[in-house]
């Protein structure tokens, strides 16, 4: 509807229309048009972008938007990640057409928001200190004392540099007359700067020429300032203070952003249980013990930060944290309690407070706000209610918003009654008709209302504004709210520069020579645990896929089950690995072909089957989410393609389910190979790699041992076709052919898959790797005696080493399980859980915290 061409009846090609659209895109009546001046001329700061878009036809612009979507999805950019059922969930929406702001315009915004940040900070300092504002009556007492965000345990705690507000976000929007207004303040946890960064990364790739030529200001300098400012908060005078980003965990709606920022800023991403308070100091639990933490950039709501002194109905935080802060041993950004300044009701008092505290007039007005706790404003609100938005005066969970104009008479009366009962809990605001900016939608450019979230960070002498922002796009013109949760989209925000653009990188921040080091920070215990299990699940998925593929190949209809004797041992191996439940007897095999096939397919695709490939993939992805700040974008891409491979199953009639399943398995095996390859080539051989690889090796040991134990139990153990199948599952066929020209023989197979220390699929190889890693673990290094785990390792490794393959292959009378080889394999299998337990006990052990219970006063029944 917005996209009008002069010749709208024309059936000219879509290309021609789209090209014209840029030129003809007209504004919307009643909204400020960001693109054109009132005379209809494209604003100077939009010219370069529009010229670039004009060069593209409709397909070209569509391609931009498709590429944006693909890049976002590959990079795993998501909003409310991870629901219980394992989905990766709401992808982040980004429009490829950036929002452009001229240098001059920005100058004004910058100045106004620096003033506002300074003002809000001063309000916080006073509220948590002398409280002069409420004592002198400059601010109603309720605006401090009635606020749930006013954390009494934090009153009187000095804040480093008197800057509780370290990072600040302001939502601004432009009214029809071109005036910018602040519509919301974010003083507690300003989210979204990471999404702004991600939008920039993608948009600059989509539109490289115009991005370069238009002199768009860069974002890196802002984040470098953030690193410096946060480091400066550290109470300890240390060279490189330890900064962590405290996340509420992967269920939080902006978890992606938290992981992304942690990685970008070089901070450790931690959950509450990764931290512990000892002696009023905060420590991170790492593999090598406790490491002091100096600064916490927090994304956990402040009242959840310490169940001991703040709210104790949530265990997201760190017990004792307030004490550590009170003792001056750790700094938080933003300081605990800083949510107080972002109350919507506060806006009503900012003009006066600005004159009182800063001796200046407020440069950018807030959206018109009334606090109903005062008589005159309340009366005004009652009269004008139909044109106002009524909301909670303070930020509380589950707060309400009512649009006065949409209320029925009954709702109106009920709301008024509630407001009169507790007027101090209510605030009314005017609605601003947002300006519109060109946005790509359904194959055309349209105008959509936008609001802009601008970020500031504290500096030594004031605040610095990020020269860029997160622009949010309302889903439709009449949508009163801009919200990423309610179908909104986002845009990169280009702030143009008058002069040359500064180029900053986050690295090389100082001129002092770098102190070379070969190790990173010690790995957190929780992260080590995740990496270990990532290794295990990846190997489990791969081995399962290989075994299933070899099995499927041998039960294809063409073979008419003629390979029954071969099939049975493979099925046995699947059963002992609990991938299928039961195996029919040899005589029934042919008759039960269909059931067997169905079971094998379930073992691949069934999400409810606990050891199916799909379940393993779900585990890999779940852990991948938890390790977002640790794994590379490419690795993430591979991980997300695993489920694509499963979903890509071709259901058309031309393909039988079995041959389709074979394709899927092959694709899975290849994706996992690239996963292992990336890990091998990208990870330094530090603690993280050790745990990933140990998981991988322990799992592979179990698989090979089970394969041999179940597969060679059969009377056909010497059958070369069976041995060939075993070699195939063990991915050692080529090596075998390379060494022996003969048909496979048992002794040679044992040698290759068990004893050969050079075969990466062989058992001995696994043991050597595990042993190598174990020797480097902190506890093993510090222990004078052999630890129990090390004993188990050496014992089994030696057993393997001492074996003679010809001995192993000698046919022994009696039970298979009593043979030398079966006993050995069983011992190896039994050793693996011991190793895994030793790792868990020694390195991963972290317990959850809980409340030991308040005791209610339970007076004895009083005499009456």
């Amino acid at each position, binding site marked *: 509807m917005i996209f009008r061409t002069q010749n709208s009846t024309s059936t000219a090609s879509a290309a021609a229309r789209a090209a014209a659209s840029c030129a003809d895109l007209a504004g919307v009546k009643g909204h400020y048009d960001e693109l054109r001046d009132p005379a209809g001329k494209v604003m100077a700061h939009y010219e370069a972008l529009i010229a670039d878009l004009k060069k593209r036809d409709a397909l070209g612009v569509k391609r931009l938007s498709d590429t944006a979507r693909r890049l976002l999805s590959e990079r795993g950019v998501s909003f409310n990640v991870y629901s219980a059922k394992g989905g990766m969930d709401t992808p982040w929406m980004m429009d490829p057409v950036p929002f452009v702001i001229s240098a001059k315009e920005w100058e004004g915004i910058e100045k106004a928001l620096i003033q506002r940040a300074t003002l809000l900070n001063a309000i916080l300092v006073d509220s948590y200190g002398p409280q002069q504002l*409420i004592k002198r009556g400059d601010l109603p007492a309720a605006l401090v004392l009635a606020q749930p965000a006013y954390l009494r345990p934090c009153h009187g705690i000095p804040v480093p540099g008197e800057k509780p507000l370290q990072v600040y976000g302001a939502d601004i929007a432009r009214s029809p007359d071109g005036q910018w207004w602040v519509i919301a303040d974010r003083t507690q946890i300003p989210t979204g700067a990471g999404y702004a960064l991600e939008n920039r990364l993608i948009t600059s790739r989509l539109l490289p020429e115009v991005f370069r030529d238009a002199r768009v200001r860069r974002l890196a300098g802002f984040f470098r300032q953030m690193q410096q400012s946060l480091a400066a908060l550290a109470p300890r005078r240390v060279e490189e203070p330890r900064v962590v980003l405290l996340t509420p965990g992967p269920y939080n709606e902006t978890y992606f952003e938290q992981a992304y920022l942690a990685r970008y800023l070089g901070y450790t991403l931690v959950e509450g249980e990764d931290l512990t*308070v000892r002696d009023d100091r905060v420590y991170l639990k790492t593999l090598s013990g406790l490491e002091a933490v100096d600064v916490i950039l927090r994304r956990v709501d402040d009242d959840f930060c310490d169940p001991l002194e703040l709210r104790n109905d949530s265990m997201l935080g760190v017990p004792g944290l307030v004490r550590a802060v009170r003792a001056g041993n750790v700094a938080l950004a933003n300081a605990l309690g800083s949510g107080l300044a972002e109350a919507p009701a506060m806006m009503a008092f900012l003009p006066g407070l600005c004159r009182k505290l800063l001796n200046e007039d407020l440069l950018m007005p807030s959206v018109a706000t009334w606090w109903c706790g005062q*008589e005159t404003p309340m009366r005004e609100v009652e009269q004008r209610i139909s044109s106002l938005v009524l909301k909670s005066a303070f930020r509380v969970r589950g707060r309400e918003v009512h649009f006065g104009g949409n209320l029925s008479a009954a709702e109106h009366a009920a709301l008024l009654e509630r407001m009169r009962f507790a007027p101090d*809990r209510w605030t009314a605001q005017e609605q601003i008709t947002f300006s519109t900016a060109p946005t790509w939608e359904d194959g055309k450019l349209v105008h959509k209302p936008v609001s802009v979230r601008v970020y500031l960070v504290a500096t030594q002498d004031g605040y610095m504004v990020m020269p860029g922002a997160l622009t949010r796009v309302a889903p439709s013109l009449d949508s009163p709210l801009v919200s990423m949760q309610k179908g909104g989209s986002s845009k990169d925000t280009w702030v143009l520069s008058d002069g040359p653009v500064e180029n900053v990188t986050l690295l090389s921040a100082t001129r002092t020579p770098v102190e070379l080091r070969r190790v990173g920070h010690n790995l957190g215990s929780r992260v080590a645990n995740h990496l270990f299990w990532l290794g295990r699940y990846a190997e489990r998925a791969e081995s399962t896929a290989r075994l299933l593929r070899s099995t499927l190949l041998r039960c294809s209809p063409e073979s008419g089950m003629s390979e029954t004797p071969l099939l049975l041992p493979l099925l046995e191996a699947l059963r002992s690995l609990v991938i299928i439940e039961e195996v029919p007897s040899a005589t029934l095999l042919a008759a039960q072909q269909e059931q067997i096939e169905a079971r094998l397919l379930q073992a691949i695709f069934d999400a409810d089957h606990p050891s199916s490939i799909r379940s393993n993939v779900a585990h890999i992805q779940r852990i991948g989410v938890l390790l977002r700040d640790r794994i590379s974008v490419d690795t993430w891409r591979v991980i997300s393609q695993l489920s694509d491979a499963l979903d890509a199953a071709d259901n058309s009639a031309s393909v039988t389910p079995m041959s389709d399943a074979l394709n899927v398995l092959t694709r899975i095996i290849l994706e996992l190979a690239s996963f292992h390859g990336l890990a091998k080539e990208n990870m330094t051989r530090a603690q993280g790699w050790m745990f990933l690889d140990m998981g991988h090796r322990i799992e592979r040991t179990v698989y090979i041992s089970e394969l041999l134990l179940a597969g060679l139990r059969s009377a056909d153990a010497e059958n070369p076709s069976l041995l060939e199948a075993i070699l195939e599952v063990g991915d050692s066929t080529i090596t075998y052919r390379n060494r022996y020209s003969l048909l496979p023989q048992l002794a040679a197979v044992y040698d290759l898959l068990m004893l050969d220390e050079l075969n990466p699929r062989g058992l001995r190889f696994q043991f050597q790797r595990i042993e190598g890693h174990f020797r480097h673990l902190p506890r093993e290094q510090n222990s004078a005696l052999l630890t129990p785990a090390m004993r188990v390792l050496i014992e089994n490794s030696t057993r393997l080493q001492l074996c003679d393959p010809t001995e192993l292959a000698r046919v022994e009378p009696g039970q298979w399980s009593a043979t030398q080889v079966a006993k050995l394999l069983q011992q190896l299998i039994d050793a693996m859980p011991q190793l895994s337990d030793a790792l868990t006990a020694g390195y991963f052990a972290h317990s959850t915290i809980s409340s030991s219970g308040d*005791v209610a006063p*339970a007076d*004895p029944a009083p005499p009456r």
Partner: protein
Amino acid sequence: MNYRITHRTKYVYSEPVAVSHHAARLRPRDTDTQVCREFGLSFDPEPDLTTQHTDSFGNQVSCFSIQKLHARFEVVSRSFVSLTSVLQPDPAQTPAWEDVAALFRDPVAVDLLDPCQFVFRSPLLVHEMPQREFALPSFKKGRPVLAAVADLSRRIHREFVFDPRATTISTPLSEVLANKRGVCQDFAHLAIASLRAMGLPARYVSGYLRTRPPPGKARLVGVDASHAWVSCFVPGFGWVDFDPTNDCFTSLDHITVALGRDFSDVSPVRGIITGGGKHSVIVGVDVEPVE
């Protein structure tokens, strides 16, 4: 009147606890009518770290952490407190409740900022219209504030049944109001929410109550418990405490320990443990009158 008070809190855990942090508000406050002459805490095992601070309501808080494995933890507070008689204002002479409520509507005078913080909702108590409806019969037009409070206390005592099994620490007020059952904490919370719903400040008081043995019987040791009551504000006089559980203004039988907006501000012992499996808490209080 003097009291020797022992308050014992013992935690037993089914699995060892690696770290525990506790915050205790156990020291009886000094007030116009009460002096805490002796106070001491003893622990088993001994904490690795203890600190003290005064919270924003003026309560003394002891924090202690144990940083080695432990399967149980006991903290015992012993105090010696002297009480002098409380001079109660004559309820009939107190100002009309509407005039008191008016003082706490914006703008609030600077010398009323302290009581003012007790007029708003608090972590456990969001007063809503049902509490106002409950309170209204006591707050007749122009009634002196303390007379209205006395009537409210009388009604709670008459209409509600003392029943320790009816509620837990987290039972919401709406349920108490509906079932008309609860313990002192519930009655105190109900009275506070009712007063606030009328626009009047009200505080939660935690403390101890002297129990009197039936005539002719000896006092039993260790069967006392912590108690809770309410403090309301009378302009020109100050805070006046009343006990809706026993329908009385407090006297020499009520020993004040801590003050806050609701129970969450004054919880006698609060702890967060790492590990520990299942746990149980045993509390024993003894209030011994000393001549």
